[in-house]
C-alpha cells in the first residue's frame, strides 16, 4: 500500500467530477486527494488524484476510470519524475507584538507569504509538497490555528509533455 498519483484527463462537462468521485466511493477506493481544473486542451480538464493502494488495486482503479465515457486518458505518474505542489491558506492567532513576530519569522523560513493581517491573526499562504505543508501546520499549531484550508495535490511530469 502506497500513495499513487494519477493524472486523469476528462471532458470538461457537468457531472464528470461526481462520476469520478462516485466511482471511487462505490468501489471502495479511498481518495487521499483530488484536485481538478481546466488544462491546456480546450474542453478538457485534468484531475490529479492521489489514491492509496497496492498495485493490483491501483490497476483496477485505472481500468475502472478508463471505462467512464467522459474519461479520455488515465496516467499513473507515480514512478515518473514530477514536480508537485499543494497550496494552503492558514489563519494563525497572532496578537501584535512578540507572537506575531515569531509567526512571521516561521513564515519566512517556510517561504510562506503573509497575505492578510488582522487585529488578532494573520493569514499565511504556502505552496509546496505535502510534507512541507504538514510541517508548517505542526509548527504553527502552538500559536493557535484558527482556520486551515489546503488544496489537493497537483503534479506535472518534468521535461517535455508525455514524459519525453
Amino acid at each position: 500500500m502506497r500513495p499513487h498519483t494519477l493524472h486523469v484527463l476528462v471532458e470538461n462537462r457537468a457531472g464528470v467530477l461526481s462520476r469520478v468521485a462516485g466511482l471511487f466511493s462505490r468501489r471502495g477506493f479511498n481518495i487521499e486527494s483530488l484536485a481538478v481544473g481546466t488544462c491546456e486542451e480546450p474542453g478538457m480538464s485534468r484531475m490529479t488524484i492521489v489514491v492509496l493502494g497496492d498495485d493490483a488495486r491501483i490497476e483496477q482503479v485505472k481500468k475502472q476510470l478508463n471505462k467512464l465515457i467522459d474519461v479520455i486518458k488515465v496516467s499513473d505518474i507515480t514512478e515518473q519524475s514530477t514536480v508537485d505542489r499543494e497550496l494552503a491558506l492558514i489563519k494563525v492567532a497572532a496578537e501584535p507584538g512578540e507572537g506575531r513576530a515569531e509567526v512571521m519569522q516561521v513564515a519566512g523560513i517556510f517561504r510562506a507569504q503573509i497575505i492578510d493581517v488582522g487585529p488578532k491573526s494573520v493569514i499565511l499562504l504556502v505552496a509546496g509538497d505535502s510534507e512541507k505543508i504538514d510541517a508548517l501546520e505542526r509548527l504553527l499549531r502552538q500559536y493557535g490555528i484558527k482556520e486551515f484550508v489546503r488544496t489537493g495535490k497537483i503534479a506535472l511530469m518534468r521535461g517535455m509533455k508525455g514524459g519525453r
Partner: protein
Amino acid sequence: MKTGARLLVEGLQREGVETIFGYPGGAVLPIYDELYDAPLRHVLVRHEQAAAHAADGYARASGKTGVCLATSGPGACNLVTGIATAYMDSVPLVAVTGQVPTTMLGNDAFQESDITGITFPITKHNYLVKEAAEIGQVVRDAFFIAGTGRQGPVLIDLPKDVMTTQVEHVPEVREARLRGYQPTYEGHPRQVERAVALIREAERPLLYIGGGVVASGAAVEVLALAELTAVPVASTLMGLGAVPCDHPLSLGMIGMHGTEAANFAVTECDLLIAVGVRFDDRVTGRVEAFAPNAAVIHIDIDPAEIGKNKPVDVPIVGDAKLVLRAITAKLARQERGDGWLSRVRRWQEEGAGAAGTADGLSPAAVIRQMNALLDENAIVVSEVGQNQMWTAQHYCFRRPRTWITSGGLGTMGYGFPASMGAQFACPDETVALVAGDGSFQMNIQELGTVVEYDLPVKVVILNNLYLGMVRQWQELFYDRRYSYTELRPVDFVGIAKAYGVEGMRVENPDEVGPALEAAFDAEGAFVLDVRIEREANVFPMVPAGAAINEMIGRRGG
C-alpha cells in the same frame, strides 16, 4: 422547425428502433403526443419496471438494443431495477426518461428525481439533455455506447421544456466519435501467440465460456476451437446455449449449481481458456481454489474484467469472435492424450441424472418434458431462484439467445416481462417462461399486457408455496427455520382468467406432459400452475465460500 420530442422520435427511427416499451406520465406527454402517429410500435406495459425488463428481453432475444420510456420521478425510479439488471448482464438498452422543466430542476419539483445521479452506478453512461438541438446526436451516441464494446444500458433524461422547444436549425447527426470511448476489438498479436502456444502444450485444457460469447456472436468460433483442439467446454449460467448442451465436449453449467463434470474439470485443468466471463463468485466459489493449477488465458472486451478477481497469465482484450478466430487460425487439429477427455467423460457419466427425492411432482421432470416438447429455436426465459437453476440444469439449450435469465443481479420479477420482450422480438418462436410462485407474483400485472398484445407467452409456474431458493438456504444453513419464506396458495388460474388468459393447474406427475402440450398448442398465452414437490432442492450445490469441487447433494456424493 422541429420540437425536441420530434427529434427524439426521429433519432430512435434513425437507429432502426421498431418497438419501445413504456408508460406515459406528465413529463413525457410531448413524446407521447409524437408517438401518437409515429411509425413506431409503443407497447404499454402495466409497470415501468416491466418496460425495462421487456426491453432487456427484447435485446437478449434479438441482439438489438432494447428501448424503454418512462416519465420523470416515480416512472424513472421504477426503471432502476431493470436498468441495473441490464447493466449486470451487459445488455444493450437505451432508457429514455422525462424530467421536470429545466427551470425547475433541483427545486424538488413535483415528480422530480435526479435520475442521472441515481443511475450513475448502473449505466454505462447517461445524459441529462439541456439543449433540444443536441437530442439527435445524443440518441446516436447513446445507441453507439449501448451496443458496442461491452454492451450495457444508457439513459437519456429529457426535461419537459427541452421536448417542447422548437429547434430552428436542426444540426446534422454525425457518426458517433467519442474521445473517451474506443473499445478494442482485435486481440494483441503477441498475446494471441502466447495463447496459441499454451493451448498446444496443455494436457488438461478447459474452455470456460460466458455471456460475452453470446453477446459477441462467437458461438461458432468457440465450438470450432473446442473441436479442433479437443477441449471440453464449461459454460456459465449466462453462456448456456452458446455450445449445444448435447455436444460431446459440453460439460454443462459451471459454478454453485454446476455439473460435477464442469466443477471437477476446472479444479483439475492445467489451462483455463476463459472467454467472455468475469469470474463471478457464484462461478468460482472460493477463488483461490478455482482452477488452482491452471495457466489462465482470459479473453474479454472489457479490460477491467481481466485480472479483477483472478490473476491471469495471458490477458487478451478484444471481441471474443475475432480473438477466437485469430487463435484458431494458428492451430492445427490436435488430439489430446486419452487421459483427460476420458476422465472428463467419466465425471459426466457419474453426474448424469438429477439427485433428489422421488416422491411428488419433480421440477426436473417438468423441465425435461418441456425440453422434449420444444424445438431448439424455442426461447426459454426464467424467473430467479430454484426455477431458474432447475431450468439451467435440466433444459438442453442448443442455440445462443434461446436462454434468457437475470444472471448478475438475480432479479425476481424479471422473467415474465422479459418473456414479453422476447416474444415481440421473435413473434414466430415459442416463448416459454419458467417461474416460481414467488417471482411470478412480482410482475404478475403484466398478464394485462400479454392479453392486450396477443402475446402467446407460455408461463410454467413451478409452484411450491415457498420462496424456494431462500427456503433451501434456510434448510441447509439456518437449521430449517423457515422465516417468512412460506407463501399462501394463490389461484393463479383464476388470476389468469380474470385478465383473460387461459390456465390450468397440474397436481399429478402424469398430468404434466398433457398439460404442457395443451399450453404449447394453445393459440394465446397460457398459465400452467404446476404444484411441485414442496421441498425439492437444487443439487448439486457448492455452499457460498466453499471450493468449487466441494459440492453437496451430488449423486453418489
